[in-house]
């Protein structure tokens, strides 16, 4: 079975059907990119994967563990699955270092010293070691988002979910975040990205899924999706993206 296996999941918010019969398989060490217009269900799909949202129907399993039978230890599961949001969501009352060490200390029971050591190592990797004692509001958007990624990595997750993590950034700050994601991909991290960065998706993805109105309309290797999409809707979406100069 694949590392992440999503079978026929559906999800409603009241009257609004946001996911319909979605199936998705992700192998370990693979990178999957979800593309599609805003409101097509990309974020909801990611949130269902770490149970921030409950699915109405269908099954999800991650790393051989079934998530949708209601018996799973949510907190234990989320320790294995990192998620990074569009709005960074760093904790504003904590320093960068405290942001990164909080979950390892409290949720994994790591000692303060070990957690700090690990945090410094990660911060060094992204070149923000000297910001360890700063509060998030002293950092640029790109720096904050990289700290958010590191905060998730500090839990040593087996799967990373990235939810449009560059959408809130000034254009000149996007590349520093994408470079970090690229590094992660190269290190073999299993990742699912919801993204509007088409050229980046084309470059790092093993598989691209096009979502439209809560369904995965088309999926395949990036070369095929971007150069030779089968579905007219995929084609229409991509041509609008090209028009906007984003591909």
């Amino acid at each position: 079975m694949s590392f992440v296996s999503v079978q026929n999941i559906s999800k409603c918010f009241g009257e609004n059907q946001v996911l319909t019969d979605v199936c998705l398989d992700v192998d370990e060490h693979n990178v999957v990119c979800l593309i599609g217009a805003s409101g097509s269900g990309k974020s909801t799909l990611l949130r269902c994967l770490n149970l921030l949202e409950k699915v109405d129907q269908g099954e999800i399993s991650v790393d051989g563990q079934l998530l949708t039978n209601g018996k799973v230890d949510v907190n234990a599961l989320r320790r294995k699955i990192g998620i990074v949001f569009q709005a960074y969501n760093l904790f504003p009352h904590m320093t960068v270092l405290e942001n990164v060490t909080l979950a390892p200390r409290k949720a994994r029971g790591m000692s303060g010293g070990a957690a700090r050591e690990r945090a410094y190592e990660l911060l060094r990797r992204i070149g923000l070691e000297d910001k360890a004692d700063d509060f998030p509001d002293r950092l640029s958007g790109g720096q904050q988002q990289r700290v958010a990624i590191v905060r998730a990595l500090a839990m040593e997750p087996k799967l990373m979910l990235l939810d449009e993590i560059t959408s809130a950034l000034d254009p000149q700050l996007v590349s520093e975040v994408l470079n970090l994601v690229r590094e992660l991909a190269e290190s073999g991290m299993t990742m699912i990205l919801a993204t509007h960065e088409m050229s980046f998706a084309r470059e790092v993805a093993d598989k691209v899924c096009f979502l439209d109105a809560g369904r995965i309309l088309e999926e395949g290797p990036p070369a095929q999706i971007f150069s030779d999409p089968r579905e007219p809707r995929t084609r229409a979406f991509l041509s609008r993206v090209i028009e906007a100069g984003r591909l």
Partner: protein
Amino acid sequence: MNAVLHTFFSPFNFRVALPNVWAGFQVNLKLMVVAEILVLILALAIAVVRGLPGRGAAPFRALAIVYTDFFRGTPLILVAFLVGFGFPALSLGFISTRSNFTYGVVALTLVYTAYVTEVYRAGIESVHPSQRMAARSLGLSYWQSMRHVVLPQAVRRVVPPLLNDFIGLQKDTALVTVIGVGEAAYQAQAYSQNYANFTSYVVAAVFFVLLTIPLARFTDHLILHRERRERAAAT
């Protein structure tokens, strides 16, 4: 004019009344400190209970709402009568044999906990849901997220309104004079009855004002400081 000066601002009476009123005011200070500490703790607990999720917690939420509604709506002086005269009348051992001071603390705490619960609750609700979501998605439990992420931000935000409520509490410590707590207003009243002069009340007022002004200025300072910081963050 002379009558006014003599009745309210007689230097002689001021000097004579001062020691007794000061002794009484020390009781006010004790009432304040004990009640404020209890209020801070109890109100936080009740505010957290009011925010508990899930159907199982519904009775606790309801209880918290009934409590805050009742004690926010009841004048402190009535609560003081109910506790100060009612509890001893119960003849219930421990509950009925406490000192008037203790009953005063209980009355103040009951009423002000209801106010401060609402202050905390506003603070908790002002923390953006994405903060809680970020904490939960890192694998922290509901309580861990509350303790380390939501409450620290909530409490920081409500310090100024909290201090305002404490200014109110400090003044209201004078109300428990009605159940015979020998605090400043009580001593001032005793003096005025013995010497037919009301300067003793002014003495008590001076003590309260001297205590309140620094706290009020400090609260203003905090609010201003916060506004400046927020304006700086917005640019």
